[in-house]
């Protein structure tokens, strides 16, 4: 009972903070959303932020440049430059290379030991599986962020070209 009460209080407090933030700077929030809409939503953290939304927030506050998104490539950099009213520039080399084609993660199922480390690493919940049971990537939901690759203790995750969409 206490647990529930405390949780409710904490959540209410969080919601209150969020509401205050919204009320305090409505313009800023809408700019964050507009920037976020231009980002590819890979959630790969190559921009050094914890996902696309945090990167969008950083750009809006002037804490990040517009050329930090390799998956978005030149197009995203250009669109961001247009929105922010700055001169376009190519994606910075230090953030990684711009991929040639969309890719998704694939788990070599024979090698998987079921450690759940990749499941915890996936920013979009695109990996299913349970402890000591084989894991697999839902290709349709995978953004190709590659965040699941370093935690894998048996190196059984590889990147493959994304399957074509059949309409």
């Amino acid at each position: 009972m206490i647990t529930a009460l405390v949780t409710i209080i904490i959540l209410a407090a969080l919601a209150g903070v969020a509401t205050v933030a919204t009320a305090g700077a409505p313009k800023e929030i809408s700019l964050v959303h507009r920037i976020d809409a231009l980002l590819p939503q890979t959630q790969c953290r190559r921009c050094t932020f914890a996902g696309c939304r945090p990167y969008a927030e950083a750009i809006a506050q002037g804490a990040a440049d517009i050329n930090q998104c390799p998956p978005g490539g030149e197009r995203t950099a250009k669109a961001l430059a247009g929105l922010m009213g700055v001169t376009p520039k190519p994606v910075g080399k230090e953030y990684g290379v711009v991929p040639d084609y969309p890719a998704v993660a694939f788990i070599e199922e024979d090698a998987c030991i079921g450690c759940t480390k990749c499941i915890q690493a996936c920013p979009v919940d695109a990996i299913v599986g349970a402890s000591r049971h084989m894991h697999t990537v839902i290709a349709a939901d995978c953004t190709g962020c590659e965040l699941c690759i370093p935690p894998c203790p048996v190196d059984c995750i590889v990147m493959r070209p994304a399957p074509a969409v059949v309409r």
Partner: protein
Amino acid sequence: MTTEELVTGGLRLEAHKQRSTKAPIRAASLTERYVIPLDQHSGLPAVPLVKPSDRVRIWQPIAQPAPGISAWLHSPVSGEVLAIEPRPAPHRLGAPTLSVVIANDGRDERFENAAAIVSFERLSPNEACEHIARGGIVGLGGAAFPTASKLASSLCENGPKLLLNGAECEPYISCDEVLMRERAEDIVFGARALLHALCSPSCTIAIEDDVPDAHTALRLAIDKVGDARIRIKVVPAIYPAGGERQLIATVFDTEVPHDGLPADIGVVCQNVGTAAAIARWIRDGQPLVSRIVTVTGDGVRDAGNLETRIGTPFSSLIADCGGYTERMSRLIMGGSMMGTSLPHDDLPVVKATNCIVAASSLDLQLRGAEMPCIRCGNCSQVCPAFLLPQQLHWYLQPFDSDQLDRHGLLDCIECGCCDYVCPSQIPLVERFREAKPLLTRELDAHLSADAARTRFLARNERLARLEAEHRAKLAAKRRPKNEPSS
């Protein structure tokens, strides 16, 4: 330009059908080899059931549908499977695609297909669709969409209205016209089978006002069976009257929603050739292994309509029609307006091959050098999909996906009317055709980005909640035990 054209869009084009409709349908001569591409229908390629050096008989199934939208394929001759390998295909503009190659032994030994014998009247709608699928029936109007899939997705409580499309608006194609003239009974039989399969209350056969012979033949065939559910509707011969959406708008005075299908407004549209193919399958047990192909144009000596087995090379059909004339300049599959140019004639007839135009310079509207758009607006007056081609063209340079989507690029039916009237000779349709896949890809990327964002935010929220719960639990543990729990 008349008021009528201003209202509906489209063009009155000079018909070139008489060249190929003078003579009755004749059979194309048989050849030694037949090439059957596995991906000749819309959807996924079929999966082969035979392997090289297998003996096959005529009408024997040689490939089964892949899961999803796909179709059966049958052998058009008896003989031996030579290979299953990539061969140039007309629907791939001459690029190779996996095909079954069959050597004809000329004996036409019949395959006894147990699946072909059913009493169709007793089948439920779903079983009827399944039976039609087993005949390898696909839409013969040109898109080759598997008929059973279309029927199955259109089944509804009160039965959709059936529309048989006999409005053959392309100026050179006449295969449906001769079919209606000579095999009207097949069409009416197929119409009744479709009415049964769909539990449909009525069938409308739409034909253009310039084919009186076909009209008479159909009327006689309908009177013969005395079916009051089937009626004929004459539509004006304005290109592209036979486009599915355009025809539905003309006949039923209702527009198909731009992001929907005819089934959404309770209509199923099938080509008259498809109805005749269904009749042959249900009545005679003959799967879709042949179709009528119009061979015409100023580049061929003796134009006509040929009953052709699927897999016959184009070169054999051209030879049947007396060969090329010296004026021959370009080979086109489909009509002169919407067809595609082919690099050579060593390509097999597929289920979608309704017409082969051997065009000379007299047939082709020669295109001059492209000039800038003068924004005359002629294109938007003729567009049958009510689009603004000049605006679409504007938003292509540079590619503005938002505006292109808002202006309905994906609703373009690629009829070519805007090209035809453009005084600046801009190849509009070619540009639109290239841009459509790019736009589709971009819209798909937007959709999956939205989904990824939702999942990312939902996950963050969940992690925050779990963290909060965990902290709350720890806090509860640290509290003295004797405190009352509530």
